[in-house]
């Protein structure tokens, strides 16, 4: 646990600095009210009304997110395997080849179904 204490120290320092900075920002600058200035910036046209809750997003972001999770989990398997590779020897190699091949099958499927294409 002692290993994490210094990280906490730095976190307190960084968070303190960041919160301090964004908090004093309104007080250091001038304040001149202007209606257009407080609108969302859209190159001068009237701002598009934004639905509450952010509205709907294109599905492809979700596909990217799901693929990310799949591969992130693969990475989580790969790291301990890489560290212990010399001890696991041949067994580790065979199992990891099988595992990666299985993931690649799914990857090939997604690819062929245009899940990786960003129109």
């Amino acid at each position: 646990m002692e290993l994490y204490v210094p990280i906490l120290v730095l976190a307190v320092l960084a968070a303190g600095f960041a919160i301090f900075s964004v908090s004093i920002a309104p007080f250091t600058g001038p304040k001149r009210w202007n209606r257009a200035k407080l609108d969302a910036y859209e190159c001068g046209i009237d701002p598009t009304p934004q639905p509450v809750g952010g509205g709907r997003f294109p599905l492809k972001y979700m596909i990217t997110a799901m693929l990310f999770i799949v591969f992130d989990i693969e990475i989580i398997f790969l790291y301990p395997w890489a560290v212990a590779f010399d001890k696991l020897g041949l067994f580790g190699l065979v199992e990891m080849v099988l595992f990666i091949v299985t993931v690649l099958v799914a990857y090939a499927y997604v690819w062929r179904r245009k899940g990786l294409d960003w129109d």
Partner: protein
Amino acid sequence: MNDIAAPTIEYGQLAPMLLVFGAAVLGVLVEAFAPRYLRRSIHIPLTLAALVGSFALVLVQVFVSGVPTSPAAMGAVAVDGPTLFLWGVIAALAFVSVLLINDEDNFVAQAAAVPGSADEEDAEIAGFSQTEVYPLVLFAVGGMLLFTASNDLLIMFVALEVMSLPLYLLCGLARRRRLLSQEAAVKYFLLGAFSSAFFLFGMAMVYGFAGSVGLSDINAALPNVGGQEPLLVLGTALLGVGLLFKIGAAPFQAWKPDVYQGAPTPITALMASGTLVAAFGALLRVFWVALGNFDWDWRPVMWGVAILTMVAGAILAITQTDIKRMLAYSSIAHAGFLLTGVIATGAAEQNRDALSGILFYLLVYGITTVGAFAIVTMVRDAGGEAGHLSRWAGLGKRSPMLAGVFAFFLLAFAGIPLTSGFFGKYAVFSAAVAGGVLPLVLVGVVSSAIAAFFYVRVIVLMFFSDPAADGPTVVGPSVGTASVVAVAAAATVVLGVFPEPMLDLADKAASALFVR
């Protein structure tokens, strides 16, 4: 750093399961690379061959290599007598279910098309079919195989998910009444995800108690760990919720009618047979192997659940007007009958009898239920399957053969002598009586009688009422469907008249109980 020894994995023992998973992965490759018009003709032989091969490998394991006496894969998977028996049953049931799935017209042309949209129509005209069904079924079956065999709560959870996730999807793929089907899929998914979370939470609690997720380690920890009982009780309860949900025991039965009704009927057949078998395998393992010495605490609750399940299944079935919903409630009632066997623990001898009874019951119920759903797929009207019971009126006069076989299946569900259902019930109930749960058996017999009432009601409806003028047509069965019905009917007759060999086999499978 401490050394890590490379683990060992007994690939030979796991071969039936690995074969199914391997075929499923191959199926995904087929989906990825084969042209659309070839996919079906590659998938069907691949899927059927994998299931036959898996069955054959089980036989090889039993008759050539002998039943293993210690768990495989570092204690994570137990390939023992009950496992091998259930593997055989699941492989066989999956095989007949795939024959049903293979039938035309059950699955949607393009799952991503909005129901009723022009896209859907285009896809139908173009003759598309969602051939991902086959690999998904194989994944689900692989999950079932692993679910019954897992000797470790973590593996069991993985198996639970591998089994359930494809089924959630498959439920939403019905070609007709797509909104109902999608509703069923969403319901099943949400409730299933809840129950998985319960299972996971229970696992965490039990891990907190025992310091291990291995079933035998938990068993070993029961007498040794003191002062943590609340954790164990809570964990047992939550694990129970997760597992009882999967078998559809009351009060966790609510999903079953909706999902069975909405899902494509072949998938319903697979769920009603395979999933139930697999879930009972897992339930038995958790409650007998891991928590076997804790039975004084879980038994009273299980009593209540069993009574509630039997009564709820039987009584609610009476009020149903849809054939698939009725069969779903019947499945709930049967889960209750099976639970009486789970409760009837005692000495090793007693456990053996109860286990053998459960194994036999699962086999006969699974086959009969697949047959019944196969017949449901054949009775159709303009909108697809004619689900409403009133549409079945007078069916016996127009197609006596079909109605006769269906009536026979219903009698088997009711447990009338000379059908397989009778011996199934007899085996479980006699073991339960010997195990000292006579009150439960009485409830079971009473609810069997109630259940018999609604089965007979359908028979009366089919044979003794006038057919509706615009009644449903009975489509001429395809070879696959016909053979499914034939096999199921034959099995129901043979096991009802001459059950000894199969009972012996179940006895043998149960003789060594579960390996630890």
